[in-house]
């Protein structure tokens, strides 16, 4: 079943057409990767899907529902979570609290319940905390729970951001360059983790400009170049695709 369907998506910034007529579908419980050189429009595409930016034309259909015009929080409520290429954790909050915020769509206590601290609110808090600790455990960073997020090492911050997104128990997870800035060991670690997430039943849409990570774990790959989709195929076929090879070898812009 197709969980995400993108059709003829367009976005321009002034004169720059950052995303041009892009369309593809993502099957449930799969890992789909979007690759392409720097500036190809991958992050912009993610921003359009997650509602951070409005698109000029086209459509994004998630679980059968058109997302056009929905705010990011509404899209999150529908089961989509994301991470950022340049990590956006909540500064001044501990790693644990960051992950607890990720539980927002799965909990309910509002202003009145919060102020009165009713027994049900206390139980919900305990559930949120428990789940967040569990995810820190999954990512093997439970020992960092009480450390302020901003003071963690880069790789640890990525792990916290991962856990925060997973805390929402999303149907779909958008990962924008999860291996950026990581060394080879950490990258392999992230690859294992992404496979594990897929096995938990979460569909993953992954942006990466480094091919090595995606070739092993992706079920399917979309290639973007200058805002346009130039290929969509299985990893093995993408590796053989002449146009893709040219972009990656010839482009050399980074």
């Amino acid at each position: 079943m197709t969980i995400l369907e993108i059709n003829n998506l367009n976005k321009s910034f002034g004169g720059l057409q950052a995303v041009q007529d892009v369309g593809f579908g993502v099957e449930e419980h799969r890992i789909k990767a979007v690759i392409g050189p720097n500036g190809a429009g991958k992050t912009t595409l993610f921003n359009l899907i997650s509602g951070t930016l409005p698109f000029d034309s086209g459509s994004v259909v998630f679980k059968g529902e058109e997302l056009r015009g929905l705010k990011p929080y509404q899209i999150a409520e529908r089961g989509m979570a994301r991470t950022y290429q340049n990590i956006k954790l909540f500064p001044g909050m501990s790693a644990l609290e960051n992950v607890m915020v990720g539980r927002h769509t799965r909990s309910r206590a509002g202003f009145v319940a919060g102020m009165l601290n009713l027994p049900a609110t206390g139980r919900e808090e305990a559930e949120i905390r428990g789940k967040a600790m569990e995810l820190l455990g999954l990512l093997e960073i439970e020992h960092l729970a009480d450390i302020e997020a901003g003071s963690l090492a880069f790789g640890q911050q990525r792990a916290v951001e991962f856990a925060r997104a997973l805390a929402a128990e999303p149907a779909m997870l958008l990962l924008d360059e999860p291996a950026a800035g990581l060394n080879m060991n950490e990258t392999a670690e992230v690859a294992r983790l992404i496979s594990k997430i897929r096995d938990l039943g979460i569909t993953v849409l992954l942006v990466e400009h480094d091919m090595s990570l995606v070739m092993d774990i992706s079920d399917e790959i979309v290639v973007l170049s200058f805002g346009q989709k130039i290929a969509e195929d299985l990893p093995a076929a993408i590796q053989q695709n002449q146009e893709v090879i040219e972009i990656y070898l010839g482009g050399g812009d980074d």
Partner: protein
Amino acid sequence: MKRFLPLLALLALVISIQLLTQWTGTTYYLTQLTMSGYYAVVIIGLCLLMGYAGQISLGHAGFFAIGGYMSAMLTTRNLISFQNQDWVVLLDKFGLLAARQDLYGEAILAFQPWLAALIAIVLAGTIALIIGIPVLKLKGHYLAMATLGFGIIVYRVFLASEIFGEADGISGVPGFPLLPGVIVTGSFGARVGNYYIAWTLVIVAMVMLINLINSRVGRALRAIHGAEEAANAMGIDTARYKLKTFVLSAVLAAVAGVFLTHYNGGIGPSEAGVMKSVRYVALVAVGGMANLWGALIMGVTLNFLSLRGFFGSYDDAVFGAILIVIMLFAPEGLLRLNLAAKLKKLFSGGSRK
């Protein structure tokens, strides 16, 4: 419950101070401590908005004044000449009006204080909601200016309206019987009782706000403050949370306005003035922004000194100066001040971002 230990300490302190003033024959201090308590309710509410949700308001004196003025007007406006009109008869029948005599023995029929308070507080909350929707879309300086504009409008409206007593304000506001025998009033014999009423309100407000900042909502607010885009992407309706916080802090200001007006027996336009709003912001800043206890401690201490006349005719200037000094030397507030390090940094020629 670790989070409530400081509150027990506060309660003990409140009681100790009262006993101390009794033994030393200085109960007159309780008057300013009562007033400072009510102002503290405004300040901790503003602290939630500024320190936790990250939204500034330079118009909070406006909400305080809406609370105070509305309850003053409704409880003093004599309806005796309308007493045969249907709506007055109807209000009276439901026990929503209160009859009394003023100082000169004239019969007065006016709104019952509970109803007046309710109307005043709901009105302040509604106005906060209405202006908050457009204004909270603004950020930083723009939000500061927009809320400042709101505060100025409120001030001018009260100053210009005959019904609100123009430059004289409203006096002759009756006591507010909260419960049988528990009356918010400034009458001499009720001094000790009213000190406890005010500090009960402070403690109740503190309990609720401490609960709130330690809840899912408090986390969401801090997340918005830290990284709004990511907060929204995690499912937090950021606009709604900011608006609700704004309304909550406006309501707290209005509640304080209602109580203090009944306590003082009146209210004047200076309560709505911009300098009052600046004072509240300065006190939140000096208390450490995201620090309810800091806001409470600094708010009570400095307001108490101000009410005792400690700052003389420089009163407003002192609070303006406090704001400037805090912004320069200790944006995190005095109570977390690492003065030596700050001074060293300042004089080593480094500049702040």
